[in-house]
């Protein structure tokens, strides 16, 4: 142990350095705290918030009840009950659609998996509730979230094949659709 | 600056011992394990110096010198015990050296504790104030508690320590209560003040008697007199053998020394009462110690009961001292205790040294059966054991006889021939169990089925100790004159 090290030990030099550091923070007080309820931070562009079901511009549900989202979900949030559209045997739709948001971890895999872009992630995040059963959302609620978060809807094309799952899966990396 | 110069000079031996003890403890961590012997030699060196100083004091200061506001004195009586205790401690250390190594508990602190216990004992023997005596007793006892539990790998050792501790603390509590009552009687803890107070209050004061009994009980535990003996066998058996030797010899001697001083100098006015009390105690001690020793199969346990019995013999001298007529009438009795204990020290130390040598496999062989055929394998060791056993049995021309002779002479002088007769009858009983050891050593052939016959661990230091012990036993048996006259002169300084 050299002399300086010894001096440093007996004068608690290191500790004093540390205390000086903390003191300097107090003296130059620049809080990084955000007073959250009062002021909210700006969300980043790619923020992944609450999930929602989307509609076409004519108000029809995009979802075709293919169950791919349910299969993709790592947390088993989604439950889909699909059914044929009455009178149109080739068309299917989701008769019931549930999301248990207490389990969702907002990974976005379901959105990726959806062949018809029927799922979207909104920017909503303040979803605290008193009863966690309220976070078990059904189709109507999800659609309502979609309605209020995505006011601009995608247009349903006439020639669009009613079941485009095949194409969309095959050409996943197509350029982004407008809107 | 030199306000205490004279006092310190008077207590130089204690000082040296205590300082060396601290030095040993301080040096222990920085001493490599291979050189721990040096600590032992340091301790022995200090003991030799101390012995020299104490012996030197005999000629220079032959009166009673008080030191430290008359809390301690240096008189011939104290010096007698100091010389004895220092020698015993030195021999114990030398015995311990090979023993501790063989038991794998060779710790430097051990020597420090021996020295600390010794300084406690020296305070005990020179204290003339109950406070000093009590503190000395505690210093000794605490060191011994720790030393008893030193061999922590053996639960037996710890168990012995626990028992010793519990009963030791209990007894010191009783002793302290007695002291507090004496303080209340006399207004001081000085022995002479207490003697004065008893003189004025009279001996029939119930409180005086209660205090005396409590103090006697407290000391009774320390000297292992029946019915306060119950710790002895367990502790002697469980403790490491070298510690047992130290305990059996030095602790007992020091306790007796303080005991005598307290009862003669402080409570001398109650002679008639306490001599009756000790009469009963000594008879019971003799009977129980000797009779129970017969059935023991463990030699340390056997020696423990024998040590109880020997306390009984020494107490006879005390009874005689109490019965003595006139002012100095108790002198032969007291001197006989001193002679007895000095001699007892040598023989017991020797016996324990031999026991400590004995190894059976890696462990200590301490059953009496382990001595089977020792005479064939180790004639010299067996011969030494024979001499020690003979001496313990009190058969001439060994020193044990001289010890018993003086005790019984004191008893007969005090008109207690019947007590001497009883004691002697039980000496025969004791001879039976001592001779059984001899029998096992000499007359029984080792059974061929025994796995590994015990072997002996010897070393030059141990040989030296045995030589000293056997020389003491033989020389004091043949030429007891120096010891006797020293004891007789020393005891006169006891007021």
């Amino acid at each position, binding site marked *: 142990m050299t002399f300086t090290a010894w001096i440093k030990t007996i004068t608690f030099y290191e*500790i004093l350095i*540390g*205390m000086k*550091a*903390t*003191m300097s*923070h*107090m003296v130059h*007080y*620049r*809080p*990084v*705290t955000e*007073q959250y309820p009062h002021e909210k931070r700006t969300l980043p562009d790619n923020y992944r918030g609450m999930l929602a079901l989307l509609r076409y511009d004519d108000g029809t549900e995009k979802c075709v009840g293919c169950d791919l989202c349910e299969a993709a979900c790592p947390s088993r949030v989604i439950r889909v009950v699909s059914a044929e559209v009455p009178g149109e045997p080739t068309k299917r739709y989701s008769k019931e659609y549930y999301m248990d948001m207490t389990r969702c971890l907002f990974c976005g895999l379901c959105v990726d998996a959806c062949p018809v872009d029927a799922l979207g992630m909104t920017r909503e995040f303040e979803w605290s509730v008193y009863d966690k059963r309220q976070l078990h959302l059904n189709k109507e609620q999800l659609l309502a979230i979609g309605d209020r978060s995505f006011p601009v809807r995608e247009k349903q094309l006439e020639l669009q094949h009613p079941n485009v799952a095949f194409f969309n899966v095959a050409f996943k990396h197509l350029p982004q659709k407008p809107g | 600056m030199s306000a205490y110069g004279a006092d310190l000079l008077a207590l130089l031996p204690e000082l040296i011992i205590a300082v060396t003890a601290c030095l040993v403890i301080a040096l222990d961590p920085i001493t490599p394990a291979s050189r721990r012997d040096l600590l032992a030699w340091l301790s022995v060196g200090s003991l030799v110096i101390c012995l020299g100083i104490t012996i030197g004091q005999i000629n220079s200061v032959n009166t009673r010198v008080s030191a430290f506001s008359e809390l301690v004195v240096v008189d011939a009586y104290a010096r007698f015990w100091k010389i004895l205790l220092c020698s015993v401690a030195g021999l114990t250390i030398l015995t311990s050296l090979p023993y501790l190594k063989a038991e794998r508990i060779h710790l430097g602190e051990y020597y420090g504790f021996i020295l600390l216990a010794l300084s406690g004992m020296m305070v005990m023997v020179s204290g003339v104030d109950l406070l000093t005596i009590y503190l000395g007793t505690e210093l000794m006892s605490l060191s011994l508690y720790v030393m008893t539990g030193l061999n922590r790998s053996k639960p037996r050792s710890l168990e012995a320590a626990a028992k010793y501790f519990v009963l030791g603390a209990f007894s010191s509590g009783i002793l302290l209560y007695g002291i507090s009552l004496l303080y209340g009687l006399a207004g001081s803890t000085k022995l002479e003040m207490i003697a004065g107070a008893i003189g004025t209050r009279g001996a029939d004061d119930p409180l005086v008697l209660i205090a005396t009994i409590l103090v006697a009980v407290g000391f009774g535990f320390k000297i292992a007199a029946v019915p306060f003996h119950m710790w002895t066998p367990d502790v002697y058996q469980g403790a490491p053998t070298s510690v047992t030797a130290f305990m059996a010899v030095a602790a007992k001697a020091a306790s007796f020394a303080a005991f005598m001083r307290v009862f003669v100098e402080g409570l001398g006015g109650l002679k008639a009462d306490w001599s009756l009390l000790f009469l009963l105690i000594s008879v019971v001690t003799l009977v129980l110690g000797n009779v129970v020793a017969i059935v023991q199969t463990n030699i340390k346990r056997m020696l423990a009961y024998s040590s109880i019995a020997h306390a009984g013999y020494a107490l006879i001298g005390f009874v005689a001292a109490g019965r003595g007529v006139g002012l100095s009438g108790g002198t032969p009795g007291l001197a006989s205790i001193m002679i007895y204990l000095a001699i007892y020290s040598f023989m017991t130390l020797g016996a324990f040294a031999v026991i400590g040598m004995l190894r059976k496999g890696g462990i200590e062989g301490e059953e009496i059966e382990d001595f089977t055929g020792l005479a064939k394998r180790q004639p010299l060791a067996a011969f030494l054991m024979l001499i020690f056993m003979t001496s313990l049995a009190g058969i001439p021309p060994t020193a044990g006889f001289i010890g018993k002779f003086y005790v019984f002479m004191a008893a007969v002088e005090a008109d207690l021939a019947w007590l001497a007769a009883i004691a002697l009858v039980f000496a025969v009983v004791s001879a039976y169990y001592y001779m059984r050891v001899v029998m096992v050593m000499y007359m029984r052939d080792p059974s061929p089925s025994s796995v590994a016959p015990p072997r002996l661990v010897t070393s030059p230091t141990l040989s030296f100790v045995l030589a000293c012990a056997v020389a003491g036993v033989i020389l004091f048996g043949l030429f007891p004159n120096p010891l006797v006259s020293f004891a007789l002169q020393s005891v006169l300084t006891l007021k």
Partner: protein
Amino acid sequence: MTELSLRLAVTFAQILAEMSIVMITVATMTYFERKVLGWMQDRMGPMEVGPYGLLQPVADGIKLFFKEDIVPAGANKAMFALAPMLTMVVSMIGFAVIPFGPNMTLDIFGITIKPFVVADINIGVLYILAIASIGAYGIILGGWASNSKYSLLGGLRAAAQVISYELNVGLALIGVLMLAGTLSLVQITEAQAGGFWHWFIWGGRPDGFFPIHTQIFAFVVFIISAVAETNRIPFDLPEAESELVAGFFTEYSGMRFAFFVSAEYANMTLVSCVAAALFLGGWNAPYPGTIFEYIGLEQLAWVEHIVWFAAKVYFFLFLFIWIRATLPRLRYDQLMRFGWKVMLPIALANIIITSITLYFFPR
């Protein structure tokens, strides 16, 4: 008899006043600590309840008061209930001998009292040590009675720690006691009057500035040991969150929890008071006399004294928080080694050196 009852009444009033001062300090401290910690960590601290969160202690108190009182299954109910009270009481009664202000007397209703100290007993320092030493009981008992391994471990650690460091506290004070020659806190403080160089931390002789009897080492030992004895970071092993959840009060909630916490703050305050009184001159200003005296307001000098005392105490309290903000927690063996192998020898050496200097340069 009337005088006795009067005296009792006055004493009770004093106790009440003192306790309220302490409780207010404790309440303030809970807020103060969070705030200061926040500032040091570039946060804001409590801000919601009241302006700048000033009513936070009140809110906390109300919350804890109304919280459900849970006794764990298998707990020893009596001991479980006793432990926080014991801790609390012990931490409070120590203040009885602390002189908050100058040693003046006041005659009211025909009896003489000392307004700034409840009991000026002649063994004040010993009293403080005695009280501090039994503070461990509450912790040990609480830990044991909870029937939880975390609590028990916390309690055991607390016991070991308190015993180890209390020794150092006591030994650190001995130098001061030698200098002052008395055990009474009032007299010790009085002995330091007349400027900061007379404070025992410097230990200058009355006739000179040279700090021959300096107790600064003792002071450092005392402060560090005091931090350890009050179980504060970096010595908060008994309640180490990352290892023992919350140590001895893991199982506590509600008012009992509050008792433990406030006892901790009260203890901090107590050791701060002791440090101020023993090392930093207590109520004495760092200059001779008082400003009020110079400007002719002798009767108001006590205000200045009290302000100085409060300033010193709060400095120490701030120091506690500051250290907490800076240092991480020690490991258990480090704690013990530090106490026995570093603090103890320093304290002992200080005693020896002080006695030597006192022998050659008597005060």
